[in-house]
């Protein structure tokens, strides 16, 4: 075995043990897209679980977004992986959950902005898939490069509250009782690719046909350019992201976590995996909750009393400026986020209607009546119900 493989395995084991990621006997769903990251994750978790006797019960959980020529092919890879790694596989589809495939969404809204829908839907789909299996912990293949990209994107958008979600190895939120973790958080993408190559892993390497998302693409190019000059830049950015996240008051990060059923979308695409659209997400949020938009971009940071007094002073001086005064009233709301259930689908949400239902509502209203009749045969569910409502509205008008 080339040394690069054993080093990578040892480092991943150290991350898992050091962060106390798993408990003995825990059932773990691996978010599997068939791509390199999740395939390496499945392979290495199987190896380490056996070698170090973690006592984990592993399975694969895949999301079928309904993208012909992309996801159908990559799911074939996941099906082979299930056999290769001897793990059960569960596939949940946007079609059954929401009544819409991504192909249909794109036919309706066009390619621009479709990643937003995909990201919001995926977040819930993974949770629902895990819930279906009775599993409380989903691991995803996010690697150090993905996280560095997201850190850069959040910085460039001035969105520090999101950093905590992006950089924590384990995230759980009030929006879900299912824990997420990223065991490959400190693994360079390069190591993952080399591991997959040397272990001759069977993975799928085609870009999503709808994907190219300009902002993440630029952040990605920046990271890769930096890596060329100084390879450790990637982990250094991850580290900086963690340190900055620690400076954000918890109520700010929590508010973001609660209000976004989809906060992982910032790192969420490529299936459970990295390429979704933080930028579009920010746009969406502004559209969905205009009054909240200012809170996300709130830059005033008041540190807890035990914080660095020098920094605190500086920030308070800044806080006194007129710009911040204007924003201040908005901030109270951030702290008081109340978790409830979506009125439409019952999914945990901080708003009365969860983000997925809002998006679906928009889609369903615009859906041609003929389409509605066809797909209304599907299982009785909230989305179907909404389609009936949409149909009524259309026929009434």
């Amino acid at each position, binding site marked *: 075995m080339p040394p690069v493989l054993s080093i990578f395995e040892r480092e991943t084991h150290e991350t898992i043990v050091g962060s106390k990621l798993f408990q003995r006997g825990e059932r773990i769903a691996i978010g599997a897209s068939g*791509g390199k990251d999740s395939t390496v994750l499945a392979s290495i978790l199987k190896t380490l679980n056996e070698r170090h006797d973690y006592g984990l019960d592993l399975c694969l959980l895949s999301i079928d977004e309904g993208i012909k020529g992309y996801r159908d092919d990559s799911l074939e890879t996941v099906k082979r992986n299930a056999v290769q790694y001897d793990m059960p596989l569960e596939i949940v589809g946007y079609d059954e959950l929401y009544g819409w495939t991504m192909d249909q969404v794109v036919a309706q809204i066009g390619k621009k902005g479709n990643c937003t829908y995909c990201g919001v839907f995926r977040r819930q789909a993974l949770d629902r898939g895990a819930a279906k299996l009775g599993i409380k912990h989903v691991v995803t293949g996010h690697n150090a490069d993905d996280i560095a990209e997201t850190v850069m994107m959040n910085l460039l958008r001035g969105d520090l509250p999101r950093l905590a979600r992006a950089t924590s190895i384990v995230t759980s939120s009030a929006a879900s009782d299912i824990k997420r973790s990223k065991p490959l958080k400190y693994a360079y993408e*390069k190591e993952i*690719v080399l591991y997959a190559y040397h272990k001759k892993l069977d993975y799928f*390497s085609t870009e999503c046909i709808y*994907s190219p998302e300009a902002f993440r693409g630029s952040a990605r190019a920046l990271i890769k350019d930096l*890596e060329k000059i100084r390879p450790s830049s990637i982990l250094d950015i991850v580290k900086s992201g963690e340190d900055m996240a620690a400076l954000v008051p918890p109520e700010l990060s929590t508010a973001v976590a609660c209000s976004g059923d989809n906060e992982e979308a910032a790192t969420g695409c*490529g299936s459970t995996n990295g*390429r979704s659209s933080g930028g579009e997400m920010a746009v969406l949020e502004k559209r969905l909750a205009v009054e909240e938009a200012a809170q996300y971009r709130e830059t005033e940071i008041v540190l807890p009393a035990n914080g660095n007094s020098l920094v605190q002073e500086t920030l308070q001086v800044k806080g006194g400026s007129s710009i911040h005064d204007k924003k201040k009233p908005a901030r109270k709301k951030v702290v008081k986020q109340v978790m409830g259930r979506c009125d439409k689908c019952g999914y945990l949400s901080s708003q009365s209607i969860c983000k997925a239902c809002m998006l679906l509502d928009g889609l369903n209203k615009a859906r041609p009546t003929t389409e509605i009749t066809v797909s209304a045969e599907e299982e009785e569910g909230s989305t179907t119900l909404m389609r009936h409502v949409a149909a009524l509205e259309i026929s009434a008008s």
Partner: protein
Amino acid sequence: MGEPTDASTTSTSTSTPTITITVEFTGGLEMLFDNIPFHHVKLPAKNTQGQVVTIGDLIPWLCENLMKDTRKELFVLDGNVRPGILVLINEADWELEGEDKYELKDGDNVLFVSTLHGG
């Protein structure tokens, strides 16, 4: 000048020593090369300046002679292999082998792996 192309190639290939290497593309890069991952490539052992042929010479050669896709920028940027593409020479990271300065030998295996495609 005026000579048929095949004749001139024949004369060069007989007069100059050549090396044969294997070039491999994975991780989605094979898409740019007619979806063929493995290629046997015959190169002159010396470049136009009469020096031993290097990876630095190989890369433009691949673009001109092997790539079927017009999107060269997915493989080469600013004259270098696009950042995010790993290059392995006989299974070792090319960063350990002098990168584009590496002098190719007969029988070498050069692998290009894209890390840029979705997970």
